[in-house]
């Protein structure tokens, strides 16, 4: 019986755990609860993927109201893959969290952290799983509001201004999305994605459709932090507690998924790319984003901010993959969603472990850390190699797809720019390596110990999977190709 209800349990279990956590009040119990819930969510996501692969899309009608009228949850290969990314990162973060928040968040706020995390998790899972456009907006705000509060938990007072700026820009983005959905509802009279896709086709050349596309395009690119609209991201990533930064890395990926869902499933790639030529806008923006953000990363003194700019560059890669409008490019985007989730989680968590011991993410304070925390720094280097795209790491797999897609189109310049940004990544990773291994620590500071096991374990699980999925691509790239084919098939 449980099997048929898996789609709703995916969202409802974290949603119910959040108030329970508030009632439990003891941080340790809350931690156990949120870890258990994350593991359950991961198991459910894996089961859903298994079923989506063998039986095709799963549909679940909330409140027994059948689909075009009621809210429908719909799971296919694409969002099952996304659900796994969210739940997996959530689980890893929860193993890492207790030690990390012990010094980054005030003890009185630990319960709140776990409550907000559970709300955040249910919001993101909800955005991903739902087949109803308005439901996307509602879950969007659940996850966004909890993110604002999570950022503000940071101890630096600049976390507050970063959270406020993100709140203002995030609300603009969300409201734009709401207007876009409203315009589409006005035209079609339906909110269900599959139904909307069908009814929208004959009306695509109307002005209302164009306005809806414009609003949704701006709203979504603001949320997923594409180049000129990324200004909220570096501050928010830098001043949030490290665990929150790792979680926020998943947020932008969920928005890329939503963009794919709207562009391919609802609008159809023919309208968005063949008629409207959205790629003419996306390709230059992604390329500028990749180059500008990578260059900005080189000049940062704060390692956390450096990684934040690197994330902006990676978002550029992902949107570039979409704008190739080819199956190879789209596979690259989808596989990079997974690969970069691993990479950025590993890097930020390694940095979080250093923060626990050193207390500062500034490059000057990390001098000689390579000899004091050899395991953590080794993990950071391996993660950095993945970010650069060295063979045998996951980064190589995604870049391979992107370059292949560029060459398929005959865009030599784009392919060489992808290689150029990889070189920029070499520079900014090298700056950390140089400081950590080749400079002497300040003699006035006391030497620090290696990070505790509860932090090492999740970091090394991530590093191992970065290497494993860099060698065996059957699950990641294979699935991504199936997902891309599914999106191109135009199925709901």
């Amino acid at each position, binding site marked *: 019986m449980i099997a048929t209800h898996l789609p709703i349990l995916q969202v409802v279990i974290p949603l119910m755990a959040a108030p329970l956590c508030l009632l439990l009040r003891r941080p340790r119990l809350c931690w156990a609860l949120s870890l258990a819930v994350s593991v359950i969510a991961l198991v459910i996501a894996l089961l859903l993927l298994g079923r989506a692969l063998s039986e095709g899309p799963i549909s679940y009608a909330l409140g027994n109201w059948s689909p075009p009228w009621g809210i429908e949850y719909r799971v296919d290969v694409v969002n099952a893959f996304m659900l796994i990314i969210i739940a997996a990162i959530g689980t890893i973060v929860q193993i890492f969290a207790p030690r990390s928040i012990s010094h980054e968040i005030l003890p009185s706020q630990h319960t709140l952290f776990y409550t907000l995390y559970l709300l955040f998790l249910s919001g993101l899972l909800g955005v991903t799983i739902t087949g109803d456009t308005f439901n996307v907006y509602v879950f969007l705000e659940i996850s966004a509001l909890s993110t*604002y509060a999570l950022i503000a938990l940071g101890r630096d007072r600049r976390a507050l201004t970063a959270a406020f700026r993100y*709140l203002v820009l995030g609300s603009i983005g969300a409201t734009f999305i709401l207007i876009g959905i*409203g315009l589409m509802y006005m035209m079609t009279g339906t909110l269900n994605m599959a139904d909307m896709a069908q009814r929208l086709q004959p009306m695509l050349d109307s002005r209302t459709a164009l306005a809806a596309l414009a609003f949704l395009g701006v709203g979504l690119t603001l949320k997923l932090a594409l180049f000129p609209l990324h200004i909220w991201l570096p501050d928010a990533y830098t001043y949030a507690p490290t665990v929150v930064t790792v979680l926020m890395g998943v947020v932008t990926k969920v928005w890329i998924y939503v963009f794919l869902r709207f562009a391919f499933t609802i609008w159809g790639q023919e309208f968005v790319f063949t008629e409207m030529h959205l790629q003419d806008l996306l390709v230059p923006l992604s390329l500028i984003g990749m180059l500008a953000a990578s260059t900005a990363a080189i000049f940062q003194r704060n390692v956390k901010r450096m990684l934040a700019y690197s994330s902006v560059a990676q978002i550029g890669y992902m949107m570039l993959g979409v704008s190739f409008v080819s199956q190879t490019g789209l596979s690259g985007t989808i596989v990079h969603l997974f690969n970069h989730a691993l990479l950025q989680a590993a890097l930020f968590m390694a940095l979080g472990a250093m923060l626990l011991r050193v207390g500062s993410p500034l490059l000057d304070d990390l001098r000689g850390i390579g000899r004091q925390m050899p395991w953590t720094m080794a993990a950071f280097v391996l993660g950095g190699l993945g970010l650069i795209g060295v063979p045998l790491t996951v980064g190589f797999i995604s870049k391979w797809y992107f370059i292949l897609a560029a060459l398929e189109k005959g865009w030599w310049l784009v392919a060489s720019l992808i290689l150029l940004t990889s070189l920029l990544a070499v520079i900014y990773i090298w700056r950390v390596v140089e400081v950590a291994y080749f400079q002497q620590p300040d003699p006035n500071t006391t030497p620090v110990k290696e990070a505790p096991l509860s932090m090492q374990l999740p970091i090394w699980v991530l590093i191992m999977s970065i290497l494993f999925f860099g060698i065996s691509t059957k699950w990641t790239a294979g699935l991504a190709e199936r997902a891309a084919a599914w999106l191109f098939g135009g199925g709901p």
Partner: protein
Amino acid sequence: MSEFPGLLNYWLVIVMMMTGFYAMISRNNLIKKVIGLSIFQGAVYLFYITAGKVFAGTAPILEEGFSNYSNPLPHVLILTAIVVGIATVAVALALIMRIKDAYGTVEEDEIQHQDKIR
């Protein structure tokens, strides 16, 4: 239906939306930014309600003698959006309170100035 009275609401929505948007971007005071945000969101509520209005339709309650009802779905959607809007404003004001505690001001330029000095 002629353009003027029929589409008047939409024009008003656009004026209101841009007013809020402008306030959000141009004002220096954080509270005024939140007010702008509220106006901006209010415009969207009006937009949805307008879309749901059926001319000569009544409130959608089953009653003898009425057969023409306005579309109730946008109202329900917007009720949800209003709740979300209230939550957003509450979170924003709470953040502003903590910013005031930490910086002693709610003017954006003064906050940026203080951060640069540090």
